[in-house]
């Protein structure tokens, strides 16, 4: 008979656990219409803490509009949006007044745009661009601002000897790093990336993606990533939503969607890439 009493102990595994926490981000039934054009129709987005959700689709599919709605830059015609923040768990953010919405946006949401001109003041120093977030949040000590700007720029792997150069004189990749540092300055709960690497050449794109991926691993950040580039989505996203004509046509795990697309449009998209 086999004696199991002095068998070496088996390696320890955590039993798989049910996710019992509510999602950090929950947006339901988003509708947005610009005149005759229905930009977003009945879109639901959920993201759990530490998860990266990708949104792909062709130009005009409504993915950037969804991001603008999530960034509270715009309000939808209908739909609700909650962020699981302390004391705000059941608060529909679209029902807040403009000032409260802006406060939530500054303190809890970071955003990186495709076009650095949208997110940065090109003639101000890079460190000033980062410090602006803290200034708006009420920080009034110059030494603290310098320190926070330095830390945040270092996090996004920006060369610190150039921290007082204006973004105007920086390369595209560096400008995106400044935007990233600015977005991370207040350690937001949610990071929104709108085509963060489009317009960069392939090698720089890889470096920026590397930084993003490493940051995501270290900080367990919740990210909503919009891109038309399936390579970027495959690198970063855990889950992906495919949008067309303002609707979500398919969603699921990234590998599943990209390897075995069910929807005709998604199949086309994946094959166009290959």
């Amino acid at each position, binding site marked *: 008979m086999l004696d199991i009493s002095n068998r070496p102990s088996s390696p320890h595994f955590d039993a798989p656990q049910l996710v019992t926490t509510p999602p950090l981000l929950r947006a339901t039934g988003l509708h947005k219409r610009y005149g005759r054009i229905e930009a977003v129709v009945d879109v639901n987005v959920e993201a759990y803490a530490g998860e990266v959700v990708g949104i792909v689709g062709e130009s005009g599919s409504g993915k950037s509009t969804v991001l603008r709605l999530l960034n509270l830059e715009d309000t939808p015609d209908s739909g609700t949006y909650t962020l699981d923040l302390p004391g705000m768990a059941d608060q529909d953010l679209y029902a807040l007044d403009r000032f409260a919405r*802006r406060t939530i946006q500054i303190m809890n949401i970071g955003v990186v745009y495709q076009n650095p001109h949208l997110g940065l003041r090109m003639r101000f120093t890079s460190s*000033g661009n980062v410090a*602006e977030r803290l*200034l*708006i*949040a009420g920080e009034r000590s*110059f*030494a603290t601002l310098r320190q926070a700007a330095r830390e945040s720029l270092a996090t996004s792997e920006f060369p610190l000897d150039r921290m*007082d150069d204006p973004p105007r004189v920086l390369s595209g990749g560096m400008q995106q790093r400044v935007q990233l540092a600015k977005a991370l300055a207040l350690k937001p709960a949610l990071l929104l990336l709108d085509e963060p690497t489009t317009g960069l050449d392939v090698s720089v794109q890889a470096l920026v993606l590397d930084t993003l991926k490493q940051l995501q691993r270290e900080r367990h950040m919740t990210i909503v990533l919009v891109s038309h580039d399936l390579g970027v989505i495959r690198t970063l996203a855990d889950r992906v939503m495919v949008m067309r004509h303002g609707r979500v046509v398919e969603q699921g795990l990234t590998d599943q969607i990209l390897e075995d697309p069910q929807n005709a449009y998604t199949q086309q998209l994946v094959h166009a890439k290959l």
Partner: protein
Amino acid sequence: MTLQELAQPRQDYSYAFMDAYAKRELRRRILKAIAIPGYQVPYASRELPIARGWGTGGLQVSLSLVGPESVVKVIDQGADDSVNAANLRRFIVRMSGAQTTTDTTKATILQSRHRIPEEIMGEGQALVLQVPDPEPLRGVTADMSKAAQLHADMDYGQMWLLLYEQLVRYRQYIQGASYPSLVNRRYVISPSPIPRWDTPKLHQAAHLTLLSAGREKRLYAVPPYTDVQPLEFSDVPFQIENQQGWVCQTTGIENKFMNELPQADGTSQYELSDSGYAEKLASTGTTDATYYDDQGHFYHAGYLKPPVLPTL
């Protein structure tokens, strides 16, 4: 009874040039501005026989306040005798019959561009400043409706961004004039391009200050005894111009705001910017109390802090 007897005698202009309705509107706006210190009140800026940019804002306020009993002083860059000041003074006097003076303490209405006089102004005096650009947020947002929203929300964080940039580039606040200041702990104003030297004089001042921009059609006020705080970082205090060792070549006075007169040999001479003060000093040998005493101490002790060089 004839029509001629019933009618008013013919006059070329209304009293003080502007018609009664214009003056009434302006006085109402002034009252509103005083009621909400630092808030920019829009008004219907009238046409005057001087061009926009030459002090039409200040002139309209002066004309709506002036009466036959008034004593008017007009200065431009501190000087009573510059062309602009002389023209405005002559116009106000011709249209109102008011008295004029160059003595700060005797004036009831003092219209100025660029300077607040050296001698301390008292209760009952009104200082009217001509403002080219009333909007302090223009440097950070080009959109005027956004700026109005920021004022409404008291959302002035971005103003410190301008100061941050100055400290990073020059390690000191270099904004020379219109230094943004918080009035009554509520609204940030751009004081008419008075030098930093004069900005603290607005704090808890006994006199009324009215700032009016004719082209931009806005006026705002610092009522008597109101807090005015120049914007500054908590660890880098606001500083006035360093004019240590500048001595007036005619009066030998120090620690008053000076004009620099570059000389042919590359050196500089200095003279008092406030010509009324210099004149009084020369003729009587004595003046009333000044905001900065002869040692350069400000009359509100502790209001100005010693300089700090920020580390980058």
